[in-house]
């Protein structure tokens, strides 16, 4: 029998539909895989009873030919999505015990289409991080072993604080690890500066950050509202297209959500890319960039050329300012959004004699170090006397960054090709302990896309010299995810489907 957990989402969907397999079998296989993979720490809550109940309901609908597009397919949900009566904490201690009385629109759309929820996935606290190390539930291990490690050494490290193991990236580290380790067919994730795309790159899977407004933000725990966007992590470009189709769509509960109908993204997978124009931006060639990233990028351009696309050099002159501007805009919005965690309405509450002390003690105890740091930066840049120098200036630079992209697209470029990350995955505990900026540099290629509200797709494209996955990023015009799926499929086909690591974790 084929291992049910190694099917792609598309394959599983087709077999469920033809009733070659049942959702109950499929769901049980994944719940067993999750049990064996406890050591990775990808899931922070497993909803086994709910999953089995949903699977039985799916099987009934499949039997009555009333199946939805994702009927019976078990998936994982990032802990940042409100799921009614189910653990939702954005992996923060301050939301201790929180169970929302409502459902996020994105997850409601997935259940409407028949998907089965396996549980909630680990993440950096409030999505602030690039390695999943800021989670109040501890770090997640990547299913990729460090170079030259034996499975036995990996298992030993899982049992002792995960020291030396690789991070799956962040903030959607649990989602990426779970998808790459085949604990779920696909997962929801979210991306404010690269939190879908960098973990996809680190774990050899596909991630899509859609255009701002393509998915509703209703019921997503807010980090930076003008940058946050929901998106999928999956093992193939086709699977990501299937997931996004279900997740996206108009929603009256989010005024920034686009009313435009959702195209059939899967139909774009395999569509010819002949005569498309692909821009390669010179500003993404960083000083000191490694040869292997340079080579991967050139290889990607060559693959697209071989498929009939035209590759042209383009310039996005304000690229170097995107990351610094992001570290003003995102903390500023976070400081405003996270003001709601006050110890009064939900979550943690520290005893205090007056209400100000109640806020201060609760927030000191409930937020982790990275979140506290960003909230303080955000508070500072918005405070009287500094607003114009920092926040207003950053928002003007954002306009310039967006204008760079608009010029390139107006010149006839259909999509832009860049590396996804400056390096392959790094080790747990390796980065950012001295200077937080060291960790922030992970997002140097992805953050521009959030600043300009554009769609970005990351697909695996090769390996580092040490045998770890590396990926390329495609950036598209607003609401033109379809072009990214066509080009992403070309990269995937040219590179060959990524072979994910064999199970060593238990």
């Amino acid at each position, binding site marked *: 029998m084929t291992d049910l957990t190694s099917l792609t989402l598309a394959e599983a969907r087709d077999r469920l539909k033809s009733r070659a397999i049942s959702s109950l079998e499929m769901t049980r296989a994944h719940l067993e895989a999750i049990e064996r993979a406890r050591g990775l720490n990808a899931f922070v809550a497993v909803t086994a009873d709910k999953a089995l109940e949903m699977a039985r309901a799916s099987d009934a609908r499949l039997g009555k030919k009333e199946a939805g597009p994702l009927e019976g397919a078990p998936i994982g949900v990032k802990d940042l999505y409100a799921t009614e009566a189910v653990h939702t904490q954005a992996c923060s201690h301050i939301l201790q015990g929180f*169970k929302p009385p409502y459902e996020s629109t994105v997850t409601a759309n997935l259940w409407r289409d028949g998907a089965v929820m396996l549980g909630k996935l680990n993440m950096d606290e409030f999505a602030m991080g690039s390695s999943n190390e800021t989670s109040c539930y501890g770090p997640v291990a990547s299913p990729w072993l460090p170079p030259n490690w034996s499975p036995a050494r990996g298992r030993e490290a899982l049992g002792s604080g995960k020291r030396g193991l690789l991070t799956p990236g962040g903030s959607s580290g649990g989602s990426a690890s779970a998808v790459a380790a085949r604990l779920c067919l696909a997962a929801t994730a979210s991306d404010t500066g690269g939190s879908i795309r960098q973990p996809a790159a680190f774990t050899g899977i596909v991630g899509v950050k859609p255009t701002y*407004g393509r998915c509703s933000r209703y019921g997503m725990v807010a980090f930076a509202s003008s940058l946050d966007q929901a998106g999928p992590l999956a093992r193939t470009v086709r699977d990501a297209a299937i997931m996004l189709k279900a997740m996206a769509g108009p929603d009256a509960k989010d005024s920034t959500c686009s009313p435009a109908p959702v195209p059939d993204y899967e139909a774009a997978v395999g569509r010819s890319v002949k005569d498309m124009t692909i821009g390669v931006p010179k500003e993404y060639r960083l000083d000191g960039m490694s040869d292997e990233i340079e080579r991967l990028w050139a290889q990607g351009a060559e693959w697209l050329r071989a498929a009939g696309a035209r590759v042209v050099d383009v310039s996005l002159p304000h690229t170097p300012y995107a990351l610094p501007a992001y570290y003003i805009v995102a903390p500023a919005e976070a400081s405003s959004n996270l003001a709601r965690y006050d110890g009064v309405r939900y979550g943690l509450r520290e005893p205090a004699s*007056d209400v100000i002390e109640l806020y201060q003690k609760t927030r000191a105890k409930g937020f982790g170090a990275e979140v506290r740091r960003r909230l303080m930066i955000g508070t500072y840049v918005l405070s009287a006397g500094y607003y114009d120098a920092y926040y207003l200036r950053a928002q003007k630079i954002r306009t310039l960054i967006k204008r760079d992209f608009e010029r390139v697209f107006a010149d006839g470029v259909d999509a832009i090709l860049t590396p996804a990350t400056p390096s392959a995955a790094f080790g747990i505990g390796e980065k950012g302990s001295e200077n937080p900026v060291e960790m922030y540099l992970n997002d140097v290629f992805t953050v521009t896309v959030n600043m300009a509200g554009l769609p970005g797709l990351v697909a695996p494209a090769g390996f580092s010299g040490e045998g770890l996955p590396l990926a390329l990023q495609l950036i598209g015009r607003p609401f033109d995810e379809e072009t990214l799926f066509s080009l992403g499929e070309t990269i995937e086909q040219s590179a060959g489907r990524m072979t994910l690591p064999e199970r060593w974790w238990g």
Partner: protein
Amino acid sequence: MSVDLNAVRRIAHLARIEVSEAETPHLQREINAILKFVEALDAVNVDGVQPMTSVIPMRLPMREDIVTDGDIASKVLANAPRSEDGFFVVPKVIE
């Protein structure tokens, strides 16, 4: 620009996060590292540039001015650490 220890204490108070004296110098170093990083933006000429207010140009939708939901006090209070008689309870605010 950089912040001194007093500024760190003031920011912590504005953010309503209790910070111990022992933590303050460490936080100061980290905040200054980030402020140093964002100094790069000073090199950009932003004269006459409009600040971004909406990342995707779209009209905010209007809806009818009617009540669409409500009467869910028990749901609103369900996660409260302390509530009484349909209210959130906080330490005494006025004498």
